[in-house]
């Protein structure tokens, strides 16, 4: 799969998203990274330009609900069907809300890298079926 990992908003904590990038590459995926402090519009544009299969949003400052809502709006405005996921510092309690806001999947704080990789593996299999 080709995955765009991104850092929306002003939060500059990128250790986690880079750790995941290494893990996904090792698992055979292709990773595009947005860099820090990108707007949702920039991120969606990049997803289109690189024709990715999935977009990951990494958010640690607590703004995940606001950003997810924006993501949903921009995806709809552009009439796109790119699946997107959310990770970072995400309370268990917000996982369901994020999925209701349009995220294909949200990963709560402390999710292991291998669990995310397994998720992608399952996605891959479903897609190729």
């Amino acid at each position, binding site marked *: 799969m080709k995955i765009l990992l991104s850092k929306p*908003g*002003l*939060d*500059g*904590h*990128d*250790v986690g*998203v*880079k*750790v995941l*990038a*290494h*893990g996904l590459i090792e698992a055979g995926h292709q*990773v595009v*990274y947005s*860099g*820090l*402090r990108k*707007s949702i519009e920039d991120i969606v544009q990049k997803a289109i330009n690189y024709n990715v299969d999935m977009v990951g949003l990494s958010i640690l*400052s*607590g*703004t995940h609900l*606001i*950003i997810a809502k924006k993501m949903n709006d921009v995806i709809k405005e552009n009439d796109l069907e790119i699946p997107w996921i959310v990770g970072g*510092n*995400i*309370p*268990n*309690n917000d996982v369901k809300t994020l999925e209701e806001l349009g995220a294909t999947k949200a990963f*709560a*704080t*402390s999710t*292991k*890298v*291998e669990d995310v990789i397994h998720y992608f593996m399952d996605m891959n299999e479903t897609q190729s079926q």
Partner: protein
Amino acid sequence: MNDKNRKKTAEELGVDKVHLESGIEVDPVYIANDIDGSSVKGEMPGEYPFTRGIHSTMYRKRPFTIRQYAGFASPEETNERFQFLISNGQSGLNVAFDLPTQCGLDSDDLRAMGEVGRVGMTVDTLDDFEIAFKNIDLDKITVSLTINGTAIIAIAMYIAMAEKSGYDISSLRGTAQNDILKEFIGRGTWIFPVDKSVKLVVDTIEYCAKHLPKYSPVSVCGYHIRESGANPIQEMSYAFCIAKAYTDGALSRDIDIDDFASRLSFNFDIYGNLFEQIAKFRGGRRLWAKIIREEYGAKNDKSSWLRMIAGGGGGGLTKEQPENNIIRSAYYALISALSGTQTMALCSYDEAYTIPTEHSAEISLRTMQIMIHEMGICDTVDPLGGSYYVETLTDRFEKEIKKEMKKVDDWGGIINAVSTGKIQESVSKQAYEREMGIQTGKVEKVGVNIFTREEESKDVEFHPYNQEAADKQIEKLKHIKASRNEHDVKACLAAVKTDAENGENLMSSIIEAVKVYATVGEIVQVMKDVYGEFEEPIFF
């Protein structure tokens, strides 16, 4: 029989080999012969090169300073907190700023939405500083500004506020974090290209050396570099390379090394192997003293002191079995004290998942107090001095940090290594390897991958976002923009622009601009127009 012949290797003893996180191999035993050639022999604390501490009496005279970190959303709340602390006899406070302020965006900027006041105090104009410091005696309280990308503006506001209130700024004390180079490696609140960012730090050093000799304009942070994945050798060496870059910049202006070097301080991380951290600090302190005296020719001993704040690192704490973090933090505090720190701060045991309670904050404070008042940690200076193991490792760390600094030179220097992403790349790869080490159990972590038990998974918690306060801040900004003298603002911003174009020190023109209530966002925009913005190299 010669001791040397009695010392056996791991193989000879039939025990496993042991390596520190830094890659250094540890012998099963250390003996007197191991420190035969060590320069520490005959060295007294308070004497160059300060391996044993920067003061001759250290904690015997005065224990390390306890300074806990705290953030408050609005200038009004910050002021209340100051008043409370002063009435309780405290004399210092760290001010945390929200992300828009740190990234140079005003509260009414669309990109600031949802972030106003979230992780610290909001500052749009000088008015916010005036509210935060209302009725505070700046001669009595020392203020630490935790800000980097827009530090020059925050420092300018602090000076402007003091001047307006009638203080003699030449006696003004305080500190700013203002270490932009580490922001490119971790934390990420950079704005301008790397060379221009460093220029701004140098502007503050030059201005303070000439006008505010008691102010500490920079605290170089190995802390965030280590939290981003660097090992202890890299933490020290990158921090030293960064401090040297600022020093070189300052020397290219019309100032002497002894005019500013004693005002530079450091902020370091503590987690991992106890002896490795202690050797890191002792060896690092000796090397820094040598760099400042031998390379830069400082004559004043104070210039070559490695003054530091070192406490617990968040990177070592776990969400699993969080009470274990109390024990970890006590060891971190012990490491910090045995390493001769000047200032200490510990994380709360529960902050990995929740807003620290008064109770958990109190436990951190008591951890340090118990050490001071019950453990005899202040009785004698550098209690580990002369330990065969610690001194051997200290010597080794001095060498290894120096070697790693040479590597950065080979990459074209720290500014180049950061601009091209060379350091970011190596650090993030190590972060991945460490994380994998923990997830596979190769790096042992109690309660996480060994001695685990079924426990209720704790949910992370955030301070609820205060939209009402954010709206109020935006209203206030609107009001100030409507009531200020627009002509003066334009003239002052134009002066900042001219100074930027001409490569002048920006401090004076920024001080004038903040005095007429130009906003942080407006000033940053003018600077962006001249300097451009940093283009992040995409590395992971």
